[in-house]
């Protein structure tokens, strides 16, 4: 059995209650923090742990904290990114719904390290029922002296609030999130300046993902070395993988980074194999934005080595034959899946979610959706395939935020690996799978 850091207690009844969490050792990391760490030492500890951001980009967390502008006398902010809108990703909901105090404890640790007086959890509006669970837990934390003025008799004070979004994938992008938190449209900002210098209300701000923040209490309780001892050279610790699609056991799994993909898909401890004994066709390993890989390439790299669930192994082969760990949204497709229709749903998604600021993204996502719809309904022509590749290439890298890339990569990779299927669809003027 793999070590559990994030989900160790997840099945305990009434874990959302303060007392239950506390009796399992909850909030001891906060007590230890006051005893053993200055804010800078805490940042150092997180740096040493090797923890990387779990929101998708994998940026080293401690390093990100050290960029926070501490020279100004402006207030600083710490914001939890609970937008969780990347298709295939449903891991943060698992934490927020079942173990909100773990997230709150992490928010206290991060806020202390960053010298923050006010922190926010920005949660997608659809998850209002989770927001209410978190707000209740926050209230309990206040009642028990872990939030508010002079936490546990220390000189440190912190207020924590929850803020709902209202339906916009783009608000997961950190600068769009900050705009939204300011009560505006979720239009991403041009970077630089980065939020560490100009963030919420123009003040230095750190934005971290739910899972990143929820990992902090364990790191402080057990030490950076213990965390860094788990995983691989470049991928430390554990990661939540939310697995869905054509597998026998969809769900949220905590893995030690470096677990072979084959074991993850086929072992009963995790996905339990493909439904109905069908054959594996393809996997989108890190949320809908990362390149799709066919069965051969997700199980083994082009060099023939077993593919592992780690940042570096999934990236092996670059975009030609590799992909990315991304958010850990693991979408499995069996051999009954039409690649054209599958891709069409993602193209529609990105078109719907483009904020519209940059013309390559605003127009390109619409063109890609239209062309794919044409192919899907049997009206495509062979030229359409190269046209899609052409558009994807011109959207990628030419936009303010990475949503443009996120829309282009699925198209480029699906055609790279499944071109014959697109050709067949066009030739037959219909789908082999559903007609």
């Amino acid at each position: 059995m793999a070590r559990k850091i994030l989900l160790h207690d997840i099945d305990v009844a009434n874990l959302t209650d303060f007392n239950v969490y506390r009796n399992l050792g909850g909030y001891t990391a906060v007590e230890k923090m006051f005893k053993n760490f200055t804010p800078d030492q805490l940042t150092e500890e997180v740096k040493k742990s090797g923890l990387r951001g779990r929101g998708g980009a994998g940026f080293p967390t401690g390093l990100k904290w050290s960029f926070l502008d501490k020279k100004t006398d402006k207030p600083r902010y710490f914001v939890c990114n609970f937008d969780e809108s990347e298709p295939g990703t449903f891991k943060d909901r698992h934490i927020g719904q079942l173990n909100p105090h773990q997230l709150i404890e992490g928010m206290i640790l991060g806020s202390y390290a960053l010298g923050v007086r006010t922190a926010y959890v920005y949660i997608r509006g659809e998850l209002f029922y989770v927001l209410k669970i978190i707000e209740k837990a926050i209230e309990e934390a206040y009642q028990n002296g872990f939030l508010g003025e002079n936490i546990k008799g220390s000189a440190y004070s912190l207020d924590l609030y929850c803020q709902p979004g209202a339906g916009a994938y783009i608000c997961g992008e950190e600068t769009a999130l900050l705009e939204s938190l300011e009560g505006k449209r979720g239009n991403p900002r041009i970077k630089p300046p980065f939020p560490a210098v100009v963030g919420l209300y123009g003040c230095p701000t750190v934005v971290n993902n739910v899972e990143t923040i929820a990992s902090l209490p364990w790191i402080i309780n057990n030490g950076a070395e213990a965390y860094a001892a788990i995983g691989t050279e470049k991928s430390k610790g554990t990661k939540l993988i939310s697995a869905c699609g054509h597998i026998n056991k969809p769900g949220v799994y905590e893995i030690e980074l470096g677990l072979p993909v084959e074991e993850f898909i086929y072992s009963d401890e995790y996905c339990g194999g493909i439904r109905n004994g069908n054959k594996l066709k393809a996997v989108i390993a890190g949320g809908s934005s990362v390149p799709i890989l066919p069965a051969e390439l997700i199980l083994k790299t082009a060099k023939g080595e077993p593919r592992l669930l780690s940042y570096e192994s999934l990236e092996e082969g670059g975009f030609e034959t590799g992909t990315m760990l991304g958010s850990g949204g693991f979408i499995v497709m069996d051999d009954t899946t039409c690649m054209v229709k599958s891709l069409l749903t993602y193209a529609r998604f990105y078109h719907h979610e483009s904020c519209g600021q940059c013309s390559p993204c605003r127009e390109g996502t619409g063109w890609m959706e239209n062309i794919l719809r044409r192919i899907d309904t049997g009206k495509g022509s062979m030229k359409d395939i190269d046209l899609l590749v052409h558009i994807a290439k011109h959207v990628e890298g030419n936009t303010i935020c990475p949503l443009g890339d996120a829309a282009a990569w699925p198209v480029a990779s699906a055609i790279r690996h499944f071109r014959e299927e697109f050709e067949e669809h066009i030739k037959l003027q219909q789908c082999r799978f559903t007609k």
Partner: protein
Amino acid sequence: MQEKQNISAFKSETIELVNKIINRYPEGRQKSALLPILHIAQAENNGWLSTGIMDYVALLLNLQPIEVYEVATFYSMFNLEPVGNCVIEVCQTGPCWLKGSDEILAHFEKRLGIKPGETTEDGKFTLKTVECLAACGNAPVIQVGTDYHENLTTEKVDELIEKWKAENKVSHSNPYL
């Protein structure tokens, strides 16, 4: 603030909640409360944001009406047209599609006799399609008000529709309460 509170759109308990939310942000940053307040306003205005209710929110938060309109039009959870009592939102993104969301949507269309974006003649149901709801492990998924219904089958859809009809389901209520 005093005179604004006298405008009768929100009940006094709601005004209390609104003020509590405004206090979460620094002085002069009350605009940050806009999204939470719009959620409340929509719930209290039969599930949609009319110009009148948006103007009222602008007044409450000391904003220009245009600042409210531009935000309301950006976010997909805000309805800018009247909706039925019970709004059914069917996820259709890749992971749900893999698990049969097309059939679920088609079944709703057949049972209710409407297409996505439409409302039944009796005003009881509105059908909408939405993008990924972050519950892909339990696909197919729909959302009704703040409730998620997961692992749907056509039989479960039938049961839900019967239940909603029997109880005259209203899906919009103040999400904070």
